[in-house]
């Protein structure tokens, strides 16, 4: 009786529950079952901004994103890297299964990172836009979230842990740590999710 009532109410959109996500964005599977389970969108949230904090570049953040990139790339959606800290190495990307024709790198100074990301995120052909800003204001982060909503892709800002800025308006905020051979992912915030969790992912 009780479940029947709840079903009826939610069918007519009369109740909103904290652990359901609004219909706007779905998830693109991360490729790691443990992580998908822990995320309310069951994957990287589409049409939204994600913040990933890393203590050192190269800890595994790219391998974490790579399966989703390959998946989006197969649908001929573009993957854009803005101001990466090192050179994205073409042979490794091709080996991982990316069609490089749909991969683009934007080299730019810190002042233009947010602008370039906003402009590209709002186009509908981008599947994932990754950016490594050295700083990002709260307003800029909010604008990036809105641009991702327009374009429908996944926006990812990567942050070295020791920098000051945060993207509090991001739909998903993660922190990565190394954990002997695996990496541990702390979910700091997930829109539609209720509490902080920690997931270990083998890479």
């Amino acid at each position, binding site marked *: 009786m009780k479940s029947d009532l709840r079903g009826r109410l939610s069918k007519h959109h009369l109740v909103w529950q904290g652990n359901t996500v609004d219909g706007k964005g779905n998830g693109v599977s991360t490729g790691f079952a443990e992580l998908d389970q822990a995320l309310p969108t069951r994957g990287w949230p589409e049409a939204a901004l994600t913040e990933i904090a890393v*203590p*050192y*570049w*190269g*800890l*595994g*953040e*790219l*391998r974490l994103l*790579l399966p989703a990139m390959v998946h989006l790339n197969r649908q001929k959606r*573009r993957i854009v890297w803005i101001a*990466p*800290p*090192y*050179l*994205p*190495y*073409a*042979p*490794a*990307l*091709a*080996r*991982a299964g990316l*069609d*490089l*024709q749909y*991969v*683009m*790198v*934007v*080299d*730019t100074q810190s002042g*233009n990172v947010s*602008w*370039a990301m906003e*402009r*590209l995120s*709002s*186009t*509908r*052909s*981008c599947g994932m836009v990754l950016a490594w800003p050295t700083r990002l204001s709260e307003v800029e982060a909010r604008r990036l979230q809105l641009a991702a909503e327009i374009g429908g892709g996944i926006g990812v800002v990567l942050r070295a842990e020791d920098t000051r800025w945060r993207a509090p308006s991001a739909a998903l905020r993660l922190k990565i740590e*190394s*954990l*002997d051979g695996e*990496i541990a992912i702390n979910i700091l915030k997930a829109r539609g999710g209720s509490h902080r969790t920690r997931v270990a992912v083998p890479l």
Partner: protein
Amino acid sequence: MQHAAQHAVSLDRGTASGVARAPSSLLWAAVDLPSLALEALHIGVNEYAVVTEPSRRGEIVHQASENARSVGIKPGMNVNAALAIWASLQVCPRDPDAEHRHLHEFHHWAGRFTPTVSTEPPTTLLFEVAASLKLFDGIEALYDRLRRELDQTGHRCYLALTPTPGASSMLAAAGRETLITDRADLRMSMQALPIHSLGLAGETLRRLRAAGVSSLEELWRLPRHDLARRFGPDVVRKLDQALGMRPDPRRIDAIPDCFERHCELEAETVEACFILQAARFLLKQFSDFLTARSAVASDVRVWLKHAGKPATRIDVGTRLPMRDAAQWERLLREHIQRRELRAPVRGIRLSGSGLRSVNPASGDLFETPDAVGDWARALDELEARLGKKNLWTPSVLADHRPEHAWKRSPPAVDQADVSCPPHRPLWLLDEPRRLNCQADDGSGSVSFNIIDGPERIESGWWDDNEYCRDYYTAVCPQGRRLWVFQDLKKRSEWYLHGLFG
């Protein structure tokens, strides 16, 4: 959109009032620019100035400004004679190129009304508008509109609309503004024209004058047969053509497929907003030009002119051809803001090419942002702000040496099908970084543990980048996976070359 609305209105009017003209007849508009030589040199109305041209008698006056004429200076007069009349007279040599450019602008303008346009140098433009009457709300409305738009050009000009090209150009050249739709009225309106309007050879003209003939009316009074016999067949032919009794073919100029305009700024400036303001005007004109031709363009070039220095060229190219003046302006703004201007700007020249006609049915393709157009626009804007070389796509090359196995390509090029070796890091360092340590497999490692390798890469003997390296995958205490190598040629030093990300 505007045209469609007008079209609907004219259809209503067409059924209500009917069209008085016979449907088969043509209607030629002629625009004559009597002061073109002066205007081409930007000589003001209030100046005492003449434009001169060389002749057998030395330099003579070709055109004189109104003030100069008022003191008695006449075309054909020797320059020295003119200077004797007015000592402070401004004497400028004629610039046929500038005149041609101005006439060309009128050609563009007329192209909005009809594709049948003929420039008749030095000063006349002819275009046939009968087919466009419905679109422009009938003949009176069209005449008013032409007249109004001509007034806005700032040129002194005369407009005549008649059924024959000959009559139109003669009437316009004589300064008679006329609108005639019936051929029967032509003779009446032309009889007062002087005989030199016919454009006869100098000798024939002289003989006619000697015979006491000065106007067309007097010419028509003479017996036709004798006229041909005494003064040559040309006279009769021209008269007949003007009245539409004989065909009068005109050379129809092809619609030019490039656009070129320039404008001078009121004062020299380095302020981007003033430069953009002037550019906006030119871009709007270009956009109108394209609309008139149902065309889109991909190449827009802007030259910023400086005093005493070569002009700065800016390419505002777009990936997809379009006619969106606002988007061009946006790109131009990025270019101007990024660039260091080498000197104050005094003028702007704009040229557009790469024209492509667009099927009217698919016109919306360029108005509504589709996914492809959307992406192309974003790339254009990024390129304009960040520079072309900062946007690239990584692509693979067939080479064993890691540094040479990739390159930067322009975005969205087809990728070569190259097989890629396994065990390559996602990040590559710009330059291998020398490590100040000794690696020790397993026990007692200094800073990293080797977990995979070695992979010997020995290649490049054909150019100067020959090397011999042993690559390993290693893990550092922080948990990062590194791609390191030992340079076997340089005393076995260790280098970091990539991160597995």
